[in-house]
């Protein structure tokens, strides 16, 4: 037994307290770092040794040592936060999409589609008061052009937003798919997967894995917002990541990655399925497809929101659903008007006006030109391609305002009856006429219902978004209260270790002086 022991104890105390102070200063430095978990030093008495004094055994302490550096995290809250944040980012992204859609539809604004429709049908009522009047006919044409333009615009804007999100389904080169927001997210997911795997590896090799664990948790949090993953902590401390039952990371190896692909309707790869244009595939690290269509595994998170917004699922608000309804309305409208313009009924046949080139006399002539057509040469009229028939645009007299009885050749019994407005009145009433294609309701009612439904769905999404957002905030508050840094605690600890350091230094001085005395004893 010697003073050396005291010196040794004091020296160890100095080191330990210095180290503890480092930990405290690290905590303070990272006070505002996101995802940083506070480290606590746990001290313990170092192993005592035995001394024999006067034939009795005594235990002699050897000072202090560091037992452990503990990182304050709760695995429970970490998991809970991740699972709720997956749902929160799902609703948040859905709410973004819903807001875009409702802003485009903008029926409460001054340029609503409803008003344009009304103006168009009203122009026929005006025409009915003087069917041969060129001003009234020109007005019908102008209102028709305004209406089809508005259809085209709505379609284009909705399509553009959808294509930015999931790529353009008419682009078979795949470039717009690569540039889509969904692909950017998929790439980001793959990057994070490889980063997490890297951290898993680093963790196995590191002596002090606590900061690696913090970084890995941050990445997992971000990944959970983009993909509905489940995690499993392994015995060696690595974390495995699963999508459904498909492993993406197992231990320290990445075994899967995601790929965004176009969903074709058949094996000729010429037509993309409009109802489900994209699919997420799971590949192994060699590039082989393990799961060709994992869409059913991705029902939440940001990626899930993109899949929902870009597909035609029943009873959800999505670009596809709104576009489909708009197309149906445009098609029913065009078909119904063309029917009145061209087809006979028990009340007679529709008649346009022809003007004799030499005398200028106006007479009725059978109507043979449709009012509306598709401007891209296809056979189905949609909101995107509906246009006023150019032949009608060039000659407004081809609009069939009259409906009269005909002889067996289809010619009007009285060709001079240019003041007949029966057809114009029928056209004016068509907005409220029951349509078979719309399930028996009128275009007016169907459109109103569509708008109300979209608004109600958007409203519900906003509500969910608010609720989930609040839940996540609450969990985060709890989580942060466990692992965050409290300045008062740290500074109190700082003073604690500082005093202990001073005290240890004092012992060192005392032991040192006692040693000096000893050396002088021999002189």
């Amino acid at each position, binding site marked *: 037994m010697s003073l050396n022991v005291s010196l040794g104890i004091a020296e160890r105390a100095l080191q330990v307290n210095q180290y503890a102070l480092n930990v405290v200063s690290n905590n303070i430095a990272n006070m505002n770092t996101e995802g940083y978990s506070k480290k606590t030093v746990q001290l313990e008495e170092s192993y005592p040794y035995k001394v024999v004094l006067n034939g009795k055994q005594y235990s002699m302490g050897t000072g202090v040592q560091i037992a452990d550096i503990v990182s304050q995290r709760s695995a429970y809250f970490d998991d809970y936060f991740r699972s709720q944040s997956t749902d929160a980012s799902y609703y948040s992204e859905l709410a973004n999409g*819903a807001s875009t859609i409702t802003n485009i539809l903008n029926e*409460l604004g001054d340029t609503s589609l409803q008003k344009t429709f009304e103006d168009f049908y009203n122009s026929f009522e005006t025409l009915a008061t003087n069917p041969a009047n060129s001003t009234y006919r020109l007005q019908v044409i102008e209102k028709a052009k305004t209406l089809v333009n508005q259809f085209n615009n709505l379609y284009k804007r909705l399509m553009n937003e959808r294509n930015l999100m999931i790529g353009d389904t008419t682009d078979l080169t795949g470039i717009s798919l690569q540039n889509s927001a969904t692909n950017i997210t998929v790439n980001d997911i793959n990057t994070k997967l490889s980063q997490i795997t890297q951290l898993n590896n680093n963790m196995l090799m590191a002596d002090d894995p606590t900061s690696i664990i913090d970084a890995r948790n941050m990445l997992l949090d971000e990944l959970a917002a983009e993909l509905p993953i489940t995690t499993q902590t392994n015995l060696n401390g690595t974390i495995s990541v699963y999508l459904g039952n498909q492993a993406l990371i197992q231990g320290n190896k990445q075994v899967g990655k995601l790929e965004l692909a176009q969903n074709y309707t058949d094996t000729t790869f010429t037509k993309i399925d409009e109802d489900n244009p994209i699919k997420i595939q799971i590949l192994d690290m060699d590039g082989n497809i393990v799961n060709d269509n994992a869409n059913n595994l991705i029902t939440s998170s940001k990626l899930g929101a993109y899949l929902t917004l870009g597909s035609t699922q029943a009873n959800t608000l999505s670009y596809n659903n709104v576009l489909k309804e708009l197309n149906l309305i445009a098609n029913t409208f065009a078909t119904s008007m063309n029917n009145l313009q061209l087809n006979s009924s028990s009340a007679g046949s529709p008649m346009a006006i022809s003007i004799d080139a030499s005398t200028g006399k106006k007479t009725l002539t059978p109507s043979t030109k449709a009012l509306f057509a598709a401007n891209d040469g296809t056979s189905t009229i949609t909101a995107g391609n509906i246009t006023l028939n150019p032949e009608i645009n060039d000659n407004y007299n081809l609009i069939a305002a009259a409906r009269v009885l005909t002889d067996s050749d289809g010619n009007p019994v009285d060709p001079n009856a240019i003041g007949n407005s029966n057809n114009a009145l029928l056209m004016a009433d068509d907005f409220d006429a029951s349509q078979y294609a719309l399930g028996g309701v009128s275009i007016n009612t169907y459109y*109103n219902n569509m708008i109300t439904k979209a608004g109600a769905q958007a409203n519900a999404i906003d509500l969910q978004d608010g609720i989930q957002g609040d839940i996540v905030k609450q969990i985060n*508050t709890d989580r942060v209260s466990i692992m965050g840094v409290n300045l008062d605690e740290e500074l109190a600890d700082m003073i604690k270790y500082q005093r202990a350091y001073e005290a240890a230094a004092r012992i060192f001085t005392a032991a040192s002086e006692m040693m000096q005395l000893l050396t002088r004893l021999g002189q």
Partner: protein
Amino acid sequence: MHIRQTQIGQTSQLLEYMTKSQNDLVVLQNKISTKKNFQNIAENPIAVGQILNLNGQLNKLANYNSNIELGQSQMEINDTTLNQITSNLQRISELAVQGATGTNSAESMNSIKQEVDQLIQGLISLANTKYNDQYMFSGTNTDTPAYTYNPTTGAITYNGTKTINDDGTKIANADSQRKIKIGDGMYIDLNVAGDELFGFYDPNDATKSTGLFNSLSKLSKALGDGDYDGVAAEIDNVTAGIDSISSQRAIFGANAQRMTMTQTSIEDTQLLLTSDRSSIQDLDLISAYSDLANYTYAYQASMQISSQLMNLSILNYI
């Protein structure tokens, strides 16, 4: 219940309160500047459905109103024209009475005939009145003059939409009406076909002649022949013609009356629907301004508290 506070937790909490207050303020400012309760269909879906409905109804009513304006002016023209026609016919009637007196000389009969012929031409011309670029009495043959007069033969031919058979009976479903819509399922006929009021005259075929022009042509011939009895025979027909024109004027008058009443009813409904729409869509400015004061105060309070809390730190005392 103790929750351990952390710097991060505290600042993010304070930030959130301030953001929420600020957000409430901005939303309210938006409402006040547009004076509408909501701008987006997602904000209140039920109300949006109601507003769309009301907008549609108001649109329709405005349209019916403008149709009524058109209809009223047509009725006025109809009435004016028929009035002038009646004056003509009354003068003809006087002349016919004069001509029926057996004491007229050949010259006076002749001068009566001249005046009657002039008046007949005047009638034909009035029957060919055009309004709004449409021949009023041609039915739906609006580009064709209702009557043509052949000076050689004296034929008065009707070229409009036929509503009267050669024997004077009415044709069913003649489809000669020009209509306007003044309400759901409510239509007003704007015109009456010329042949119904005036008939037509074929000098070669008495079975193809009927009505007022037939009588007037026979009157003119009788005056020219000095046929006192022939003249007397037509006096009643002329009177009957005047009566039927009066009846038609009464019908047009009733139409005008109906349109006026409909217009009043439309205006009342418009008032009701507009105030309905306003109660759903328009912002209650008084409560909005008091909310504005409240929110502003809440925002200021949250900012004040945040700055005070953030300044408190143990570092001030060490």
